[in-house]
């Protein structure tokens, strides 16, 4: 293939890969360079990239994607329990099951569009969440969540005579996937996911998805049956969600129903809008910012704040600590809400629109031959 990838796309992919792989280094000064959080950056990055294929390209706003995320987690844990502790079969199993699940829910939900579609997806996801808590307890282990135990059959592991001492942990070809190994495992999948999303967005199929978002009537009068296009996008993004859910189960082999709750579905919507709907990089950045806030701001407490503001005169410092303490710890949602409101009001295109504006200003004042980071003007 001569036109495998355009130069700009290739540069973007290489840059993205470099940024992701060096995260443990450049995030350390921000207090985020530890494996647990880095893994979450990767996992929710994948979730958001996939969600953007549906919401960003096709324009269908799903409020139920956490269901596929949860199904991915459950499927992966079952694979660990029944087959093997190796991560690869678990990932494949999870992606297939969540894809199948997305096919059914998507087929039903896509009978409607706009707000009715969103409500249908929300209803199906809440249904799945409640089922996981109640009727499906034999599969989901209800409130306790699905966990690995020493007595799990693991038929494939048993067949090759592999056995574990202590708590079972997911592996990759015998290597345990904890800590930085887990991060690089997830990072590999994020880069692959990003690459695949790039290919989709740059294909004729991707152009059809964007056209559906732009003018569905014209698509139909142009000879396209729009429903299979939207359904494909739905299933692909459901598989991405399943992949992300499976990775969460790899790094922390416990699946609980709360992963399917509507707040989790809403979170991926926030990530995508915060970063920039319809852009490739935006949703990933949105996911990183939200997960950063969640983990860093919520860990701050009055002691840390007192130390931080200690340079201020006494008395005044106490007031500042009192005010800022409302925005951290349990109050981190307040900060996230404010940031979200400010971004949506001033940058409706999300953080990526901010980046584009800065780039445009820089190009105007910089040399005329300055390198362009922008895509097609019509994008």
């Amino acid at each position, binding site marked *: 293939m001569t036109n495998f990838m355009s130069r700009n796309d290739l540069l973007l992919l290489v840059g993205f890969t470099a940024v992701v792989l060096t995260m443990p280094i450049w995030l350390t000064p921000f207090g985020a360079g530890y494996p647990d959080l880095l893994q979450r950056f990767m996992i929710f990055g994948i979730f958001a990239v996939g969600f953007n294929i549906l919401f960003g390209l096709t324009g269908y706003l799903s409020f139920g994607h956490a269901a596929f995320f949860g199904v991915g987690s459950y499927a992966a844990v079952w694979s660990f329990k029944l087959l093997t502790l190796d991560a690869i079969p678990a990932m494949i199993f999870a992606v297939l099951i969540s894809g199948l699940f997305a096919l059914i829910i998507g087929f039903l939900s896509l009978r409607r569009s706009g707000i009715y579609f969103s409500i249908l997806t929300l209803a199906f996801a809440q249904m799945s969440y409640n089922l996981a808590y109640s009727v499906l307890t034999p599969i989901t282990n209800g409130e306790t969540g699905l966990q690995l135990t020493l007595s799990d059959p693991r038929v494939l592991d048993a067949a090759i005579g592999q056995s574990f001492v202590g708590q079972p942990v997911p592996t990759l070809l015998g290597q345990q996937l904890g800590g930085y190994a887990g991060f690089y495992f997830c990072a590999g999948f994020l880069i692959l996911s990003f690459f695949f999303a790039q290919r989709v967005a740059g294909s*004729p199929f991707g152009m059809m998805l964007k056209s559906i978002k732009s003018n569905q009537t014209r*698509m139909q009068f142009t000879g396209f049956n729009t429903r299979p296009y939207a359904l*494909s996008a739905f299933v692909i993004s459901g598989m991405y969600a399943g992949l992300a859910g499976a990775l969460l189960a790899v790094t922390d082999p416990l699946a609980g129903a709360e992963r399917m709750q509507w707040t989790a579905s809403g979170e991926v919507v926030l990530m995508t809008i915060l970063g920039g709907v319809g852009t490739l990089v935006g949703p990933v950045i949105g996911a990183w910012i939200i997960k950063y806030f969640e983990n860093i701001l919520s860990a701050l407490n009055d002691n840390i704040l007192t130390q931080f503001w200690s340079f201020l005169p006494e008395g005044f410092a106490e007031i500042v600590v009192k005010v800022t303490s409302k925005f951290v710890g349990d109050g981190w949602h307040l900060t996230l809400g404010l940031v979200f409101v400010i971004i949506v009001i001033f940058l409706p295109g999300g953080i990526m629109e901010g980046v584009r504006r800065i780039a445009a200003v820089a190009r105007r004042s910089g040399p005329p031959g300055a390198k362009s980071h922008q895509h097609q003007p019509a994008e």
Partner: protein
Amino acid sequence: MANSNIVLHVADVHKRFGGLHALADIDLQVEEGKTHAIIGPNGAGKSTLLNVIIGKLAPSSGQVVFDGAVLTGRKPYQINQLGIARVFQTPEIFSDLSVLHNVMIPAFAKRDGTFTLNMLRALDSETTIREEAEHMLEDVGMLNRRDMQAGSLSRGDKRRMELAMCLIQHPRLLLLDEPTAGMSRHDTNTTIELLQKIKSRGMTKVIIEHDMHVVFSLADKISVLAQGRIIADGSPDEVRGNPKVQEAYLGGAH
């Protein structure tokens, strides 16, 4: 009349909206390769008739037959795949996409059909379709705007682009709903020239138009619609001289 060269036959169509009889007893035969104009005062049912033909509205009774295939009951995309394209009264375009992509998309529908899962193919490698779209844009005089966002075009350019989007599919039947509405005299004349140019390609056209200058420059045959009924049918000269038409439409309009 020999039936063989009738490509579109609107047979005995009625359309009621509640108590309103929007179309009554419409019988319309369009000959292959001809330009058939439908004129009539506002509210005569012209757009309703077009919507019935294209499958956007279902007739209350009667049917529409295109080249032996019954259109009634088919979905808009199926009707398009039979070789019918439509220009809307208000341009229906992909505002967020570039002009070039707007014109490429219908070419994909023509080549690949109603659905193709070609997500691992690079759009950049579709050189044939891109070149085809560029030729089409050149034909309508818009090649210099190929990279512009379609939503930012002028109204006249949007229409010309929409026409290009239809023509790239080489439809057998082209439906035009007031293709020059809201255009300047200059843009109208360019559009007439363009439509005359494609006339030689043997494409059948059904055109709804208010502008008599456009109608008499293009039409081979004219049907006059008033209050949901066809009150006259014939060549431009016959229609011009028909006293019923003078009364219902031409007289009233001037």
